[in-house]
């Protein structure tokens, strides 16, 4: 059999996690380098995946399939379409930067060692790698159950990352801070767990239905289900399909997060350190939107179309709502969190507009949002750690003392407000066009967000960076070499993807086409042709 590339891609970070965790207490730095090494190795393999993937070829490529839990109709089954490949690559690209940015985040905890084997640093990096492994495999899975398992399991390491290694630059005292942290972590976990458990019911339902219709044993294999539905073996009753769809969608909507299920995100992002917050929004949450695109639409096309109007409304609300709240925030990280909520609204909007521009844009948006958020939030993190506070009011005139930091921060912000030439613009515009061409009203309202985005980004920049240097900001040093190594490539990537996104879109487009054919949707035709033919008819009469 062929070399199990996908398995290896997921296994490398998993092994790395174990290895890192095993590093003895004294060797903090060694652990860091080891972890970084493994993340880079993952990047190499992810690159190989992308290289071996042939756009426009088979729908799922590099497939692997082994029996796993026959009783549950579960197979260990991997395979990637264009979108999955790109997202795996995204995760693999971002994690090393996350590690570099968080290089010293766990050191604080290392100070007082309550016990012999107290190794926060090892734990921190091991958990990051663990998250990466689980995210990667959930992108690669083509078996609903396999996906679900890791979709759920990744909550645990993420939970420890948020609650255990949280931000110590909060507005309140350490004690209060600890409370806030664990509240945020628990909130994150319970929200997502609740979503996941509802989904579990739906997953079980799916099994029951398939088992009932395919005779005896049910299946979770995505290709098999699609094939069975195509051949008419499998015909879900519309009620069953809708209920199961809702179960799935709920979980993904929590993860994504979609308004009004979003309230865990600001807490989590506010309390987690910037790198962890990046890991959360830029990498982990993408699983939610990805899953909408892959599972909701492909498994339940009819139900998706049935629910689309409501979902569109919710996501439009989310877009505007998130942006408005971002304007109203006093806390830098919470501001960025609400900005992300607005952007997730765009992604979901694009997915359920069900046009090739919308979905292609949404898929591209996942990548771009990942990169841009990483750039902006990481720089914000550097700023916060320097000042020891994340309240906007505590900053001012930083640009005078740390021009480089200010500049990169501005670039990140400009990417967030989707300035042409930077990556997010392309995807955002695609989503808007795609939405507009089917639901003009939604498209227009969503477009309001570009003004609001400009507002919150520039206001944040003005308050923190411009004007006379504020007391307490004199000491802020400009970016260090390590931090430049983090930021520069991200910015380069932003510009590249903004100017020449074709390599990515070429990967994505075939997958989008397949998905659209699953839901039996075609792009609305331009109206002139229609009007022309109409005129022709007129003249014919």
């Amino acid at each position, binding site marked *: 059999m062929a070399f199990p590339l996908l398995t290896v891609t997921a296994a490398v970070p998993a092994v790395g996690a174990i290895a890192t965790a095993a590093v003895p207490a004294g060797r903090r730095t060694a652990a860091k380098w080891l972890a970084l090494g493994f993340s880079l190795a993952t990047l190499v393999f992810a690159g190989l995946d992308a290289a071996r993937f042939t756009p426009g070829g088979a729908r799922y490529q590099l497939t692997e399939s082994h029996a796993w839990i026959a009783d549950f109709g579960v197979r260990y089954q991997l395979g990637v379409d264009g979108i999955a490949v790109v997202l795996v690559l995204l995760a693999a690209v971002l994690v090393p930067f996350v590690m570099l940015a968080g290089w010293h985040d766990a050191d604080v905890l290392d100070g007082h060692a309550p016990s012999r084997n107290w190794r926060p640093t090892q734990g921190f990096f091991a958990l990051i790698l663990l998250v990466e492994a689980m995210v990667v495999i959930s992108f690669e899975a083509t078996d609903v159950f396999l996906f679900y398992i890791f979709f759920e399991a990744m909550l645990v390491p993420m939970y420890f990352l948020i609650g255990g290694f949280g931000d110590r630059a909060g507005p309140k005292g350490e004690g209060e801070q600890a409370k806030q942290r664990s509240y945020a972590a628990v909130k994150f976990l319970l929200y997502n767990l609740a979503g996941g458990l509802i989904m579990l019911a739906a997953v079980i339902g799916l099994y029951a239905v398939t088992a009932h219709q395919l005779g005896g044993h049910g299946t979770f294999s995505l290709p098999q289900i699609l094939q069975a539905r195509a051949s008419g073996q499998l015909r879900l009753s519309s009620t069953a399909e809708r209920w199961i769809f809702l179960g799935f969608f709920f979980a993904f909507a929590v993860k994504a997060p979609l308004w009004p299920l979003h309230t865990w995100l600001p807490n989590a992002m506010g309390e987690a350190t910037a790198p962890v917050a990046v890991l959360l929004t830029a990498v982990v949450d993408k699983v939610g939107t990805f899953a909408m695109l892959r599972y909701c639409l492909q498994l339940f096309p009819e139900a998706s179309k049935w629910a689309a109007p409501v979902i569109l409304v919710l996501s439009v609300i989310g877009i505007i*709502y998130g942006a408005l*709240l971002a304007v*109203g925030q006093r806390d830098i990280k919470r501001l960025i969190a609400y900005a992300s909520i607005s952007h997730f609204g765009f992604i979901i909007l694009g997915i359920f507009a069900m046009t090739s521009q919308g979905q292609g*844009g949404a898929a591209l948006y996942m990548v771009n949002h990942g990169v841009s958020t990483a750039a902006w939030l990481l720089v914000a993190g550097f700023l916060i750690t320097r000042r020891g506070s994340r309240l906007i009011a505590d900053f001012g005139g930083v640009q005078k003392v740390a021009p480089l930091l200010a500049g990169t921060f501005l670039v990140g912000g400009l990417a967030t407000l989707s300035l042409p030439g930077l990556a997010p613009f392309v995807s955002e515009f695609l989503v808007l066009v795609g939405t507009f061409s089917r639901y003009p009203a939604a498209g*227009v309202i969503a477009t309001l967000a570009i003004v609001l985005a400009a507002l919150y980004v520039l206001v944040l920049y003005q308050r923190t960076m411009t004007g006379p240097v504020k007391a307490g900001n004199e000491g802020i040093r400009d970016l260090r070499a390590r931090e430049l190594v983090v930021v520069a490539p991200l910015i380069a990537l932003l510009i590249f993807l903004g100017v020449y996104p074709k390599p990515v879109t070429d990967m994505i487009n075939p997958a989008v086409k397949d998905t659209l054919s699953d839901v039996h949707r075609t792009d609305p035709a331009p109206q002139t042709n229609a009007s022309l033919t109409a005129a022709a008819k007129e003249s014919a009469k």
Partner: protein
Amino acid sequence: MDHLIGALVGAPLLGAGVLLAGGRRLDRAGHWIGCLLAAVSFALGAALFADMLGKPTGQRTLTSHLFSWVPVGGFRADVAFQLDQLSMTFVLLITGVGTLIHIYSVGYMAHDENRRRFFGYLNLFLAAMLLLVLANNYLLLYAGWEGVGLASYLLIGFWQHKPSAATAAKKAFIVNRVGDMGLSIAIMVLFTTFGTFSFAPVFAHATSASQAKLTVVGLLLLLGACGKSAQVPLQSWLGDAMEGPTPVSALIHAATMVTAGVYLVTRSGVIFNAAPTAQLAVCVVGAVTLMFGAIVGCAKDDIKKALAGSTMSQIGYMMLAAGLGPIGYVFAIMHLVTHGFFKAGLFLGAGSVMHGMNDEVDMRKYGGLRGYMPITYVTFGLGYLAIIGFPGLSGFWSKDKIIEAAFAKGGTEGWILGGVALLGAGITAYYMTRVMVMTFFGERRWQPAPEPDTAPSVEPGIEVHPGDLPHPHESPKVMTIPMIVLAVGSVFAGGLFSINSAFVKWLQPVTGHSEGHSPVTTGEVTAATLVVLAVGVALAWAQYGRAPVPVTAPRGSLLTRAARRDLLQDDFNHVVLVRGGEHLTRSLVYLDHSLVDGAVNGTAASVGGLSARLRQVQNGYVRSYAVSMLGGTAVLVAATLLMRAV
């Protein structure tokens, strides 16, 4: 040849990249690199122009397809250029004036430690502006459109340590974004209507689309134009934009960027021609802005703000013309070019004055400077004559044509528009004379040294020691030469263009042209214009030339005071938009916490309460446990029997 188009954009882009990424090590050579690359792209432009002149009128359009930008489904946006006469005109204006202003800035920014960054931004602006005028499709145009917005943001806020500058920059960007929103929606409508947004196919099919659609597109494009070109109701940012260094005001907020709106309307002429309603809207916006700017210009004591007002009003002229359709397009562009010369010249002059008056901008503290800075005086004067439309100079040719065309629109509309344009000419004469006189004539009001109470008029952040008196002096050559060149342009350009209407012939293939049948003859228009002009000048002279000008501004009439405050537009925005917005966001923040989040926390709390209550049942007494068991048994038995019963 057509590959040069890419290089045309590429050169300044390269400059921007090098200067911004280069870091401090380029500080010493940075500004020259900037100038060089600007000059290079001007040279390229000139070469292309020569090449274009060599070709027959029919095949003068060059196209060059670089690469496919965003291909998704039916959605194809390419990075592709189209260089026709219209674009060419802009290319020459942008790169020409741009290069001059680069050179000027070398002197003007000599003492700024961030000069390298400044030139980087200038180059970035050139690149973006060229992209805007060279794009062959609306999306690429939009990219350039926002690009110039960014450049203007960066340059207005160049002195970030000044809160006023930072605020002005932010304001400019956000107000522009409102316009951009219109433009982007317009693109969406175009895509859904035509399945493409490249110029050629869209214009080819334009007529086949429903009029309603075209009107919508037209209005949305107009919204975009209003944002970029500071037309009512989105004009409020331009005045504040004067916080930026003067060369920026000259290049971006006078000569080039602010005229992008006019370019957009002219470029989309086909659409507008098919949508009369939209066209009328353009005219109205133009006319209103024309008056608005002029009135504001009369009241400002800050020389740059006065000039900004005039810019606004001049662009109003262009918009008005562009709104007139084929009658006006050519003259809109022609006025745009001449205006580019003399307004840039005026701003540079103003800059030179401020340079000599250690950055004093209040004209009431000038006076009698003509002796101290003769070259500035002469060039500024020529620019002045040009803008008020003194016979023979550039402004005369272009503006009169617009006024004439306005009348030529015919019907009552024609009369109204024409009248407004004519009146505008008079006011222009008035406020420009005012500026001229207050600055260069009369007795000098800049001694003794500025008292503390004048601090507000001094730009904050720049400390003024009572003791260092302004010692007016002529600016260095590197600054004066560009001024001279521009002055020459503002004297002769208009004339050259009008020699057997060369300009009309030049642009006609792109924009189309038709002589409207004017109810009034050219002679009559000219005469009328000259009359109002004379009146305006005379009034101004009477007010400021003969009588001494008070150093502190008199309270003035209600209109004056309103005009000083940009006719209360900012106050309106503040009350309605800013305050309202703040309240909205604040209440939303509260709701998010109490309602959306509260619901969840509430559920958790209620579960906890239920749990606490159920706990009480577990009271530790064996006998009560036994009761629950026996009770349970009874219930179970009963239930089972019931199941059988039903």
